[in-house]
């Protein structure tokens, strides 16, 4: 591998926690230097290399030090210790249109902003038409930017930053700006820069984007490197951690009990009642969150006034968008329905959950030959978590064949659906 475009070696960054800001001289004189003993390490001993021409992602939860890292890469802050070596011109997109002056026209602002980004006047002269054209605001280019809509503002900012022909481009969460058409233009431009060999560093919470766009990624956690490597693996690891954490948090919150969403009337004659639905994970432990693609069991606890024959239990899975995704019941396909006791449970086990990650509600029913004993519409909340990035409400399993030869892509789960 050639030498990296960016090399971060043992970088730490300490911020001073100003419990009380002492920015006035009087306060300094009267109260001393301020209670600035509290130091906060935003980054601790972070090292990574970004190979030339690759796209690199920075992920992590809020407060993990991503933005600080980005600011260090852009040179806005200096590291407290360690070194950052960059090879090539850095163009940072930390905030679009940050340097615009409202009273100046779009054209005048292009000159100012591009020179801040390190372009010479000649270079700006040469590319100003391209900038205006890309931003798509030719009509307003000679009016002061204070009358611009926020979309125009941001478009002009992005346009300047990517036209600078950076060797290293640092992008912070800015993709989600402008209308659909402009967003596509932005992506096209990013892909184009990537093809041209621009090294791109991207910070975003859009993990799908990191997987698609980035070659490698680093996962920062409380200022330290948690994982580094192939972007898919890193994102996967991060998502798993987030899912586990959320499940744990929810478990605490609801004390191991799926919530009934009140407000939905209970129907039926009442000889049999479904009292509770429990979610079990692949190892049959109670879970508050179920994982897409994993084995799961839905356990319905019931009480009946007397032992009864031919009671069929049913579940309804309703996505938050309102679509009923599935409605399995114990009497379907001529299955044998045993006699039930006065109290017990019925399990519905799936070998691999085909629901896509999202928020669902579960309806429950107990019926017999068209007679409804019990029915509660959308009685329980169900959170399905996972890291698939396919669109849709359910996962469709299958295999792809290229020109007649079996591709190497297999269904992700080992479950046999045949």
């Amino acid at each position, binding site marked *: 591998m050639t030498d990296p475009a960016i090399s971060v070696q043992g970088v730490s960054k300490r911020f001073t926690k100003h419990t009380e800001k002492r920015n006035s001289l009087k306060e300094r004189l009267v109260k001393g230097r301020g209670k600035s003993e509290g130091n906060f390490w935003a980054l601790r001993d972070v090292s990574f290399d970004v190979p030339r021409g690759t796209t690199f992602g920075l992920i992590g939860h809020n407060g993990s030090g991503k933005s600080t890292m980005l600011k260090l890469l852009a*040179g806005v*802050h200096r590291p407290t210790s360690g070194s950052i070596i960059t090879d090539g011109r850095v163009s940072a997109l930390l905030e679009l249109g940050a340097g615009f002056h409202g*009273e100046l026209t779009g054209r005048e602002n292009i000159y100012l902003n591009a*020179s*801040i*980004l390190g372009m010479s*006047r000649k270079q700006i002269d040469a590319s100003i038409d391209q900038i205006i054209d890309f931003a798509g605001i030719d009509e307003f280019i000679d009016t002061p930017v204070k009358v611009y809509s926020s979309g125009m503002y941001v478009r002009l900012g992005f346009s300047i930053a990517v036209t600078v022909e950076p060797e290293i481009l640092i992008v912070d969460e800015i993709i989600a700006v402008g209308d659909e058409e402009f967003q596509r233009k932005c992506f096209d431009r990013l892909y184009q820069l990537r093809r041209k060999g621009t090294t791109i560093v991207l910070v975003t919470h859009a993990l799908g984007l990191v997987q698609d766009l980035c070659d490698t990624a680093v996962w920062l956690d409380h200022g330290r490197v948690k994982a580094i490597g192939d972007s898919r693996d890193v994102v996967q690891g991060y998502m798993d951690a987030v899912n586990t954490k959320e499940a744990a948090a929810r478990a605490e919150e609801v004390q191991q009990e799926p919530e009934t969403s009140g407000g939905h009337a209970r129907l039926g004659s009442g000889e049999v009642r479904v009292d509770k639905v429990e979610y079990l994970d692949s190892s049959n432990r109670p879970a508050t969150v179920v994982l897409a693609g994993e084995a799961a069991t839905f356990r319905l606890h019931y009480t009946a006034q007397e032992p009864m024959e031919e009671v069929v239990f049913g579940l309804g899975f309703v996505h938050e968008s309102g679509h009923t995704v599935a409605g399995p019941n114990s009497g379907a396909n001529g299955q044998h329905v045993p006699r039930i006791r006065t109290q017990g449970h019925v399990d519905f086990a799936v070998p691999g959950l085909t629901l896509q990650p999202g928020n669902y509600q579960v309806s429950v029913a107990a019926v017999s030959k068209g007679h409804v004993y019990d029915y509660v519409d959308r009685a329980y909340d169900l959170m399905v978590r996972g890291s698939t990035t396919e669109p849709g409400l359910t996962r469709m399993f299958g295999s792809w064949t290229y020109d007649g030869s079996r591709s190497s892509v297999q269904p992700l789960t080992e479950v046999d659906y045949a």
Partner: protein
Amino acid sequence: MTVRQQGSLWDYRSLIWNFAQRDLKARFKGTALGWAWSLVVPLASLVIYTIVFSTIFRGKPPDFGSGRAGNFTVWLLAGLVPWGIFANNLNGSIGVLLGAGPLLKKIYFPSYAPVFGAIIATVIQSAIELGILLVVLLALGNVSWTWVLVPVWLLVFTVFVASVSLMLAVLNVYFRDLAHIIGVAIQLGFYTSPIIYQITLIPEQAHGLPLRRIIELNPMTQFIELFRDLTYGLTPGPALSWVGLFVVTGLAAGLATLVYRSRGLDLSEEL
């Protein structure tokens, strides 16, 4: 190469110039009189000071270098021009870094760039007053080879003003009362510099203090006196003054560099 490329001042000339242009363009945008304001304000104060100090207090100007009897208004203008450059720059640049805060927090560029940009803008604006003074003097036939030294004087003076301004602008980020203190200090400076009076009017001793000596040691006194010598009195000025000003300017520039290096590189965290 580190992220913050170690560019020299010269490498950033285009950025500094762009900041200067921004300031010049933005300053009078949206006003009816536009650029005329950069004349109206100093001329108005010229009229006020002339009335107060010549008519009411009966201040007497020295004769022109050409031998013609002195004119208070012209003489006063020759003092107000350098003072205006000094005061406008200090007032104008002390808040520049706070104003550039949103930018400095998002992207790296040397923090002196917007300060120097503001200074260039103010000096260009002041050049109009200077031009008017020279035109008036020319019309009065008060001109000599000493005018050749005016650009040299202006260069040294600009470096001096830029050094002081940069220091104050950087420190103002840390101690924000500085802006208010400077407001008062500039007023005090106006009366402790020989602008509206001749330095010979100051008693050698007052209240046991060597008052005239103190005022002479004020660098602004020297800059103003020297400028008047060159333009109004048509003498090259005392060599000692020149040497003194070069030394003072060198010291100011050195001090500004120290302040900038120790305090001016991490402003993004304080803004």
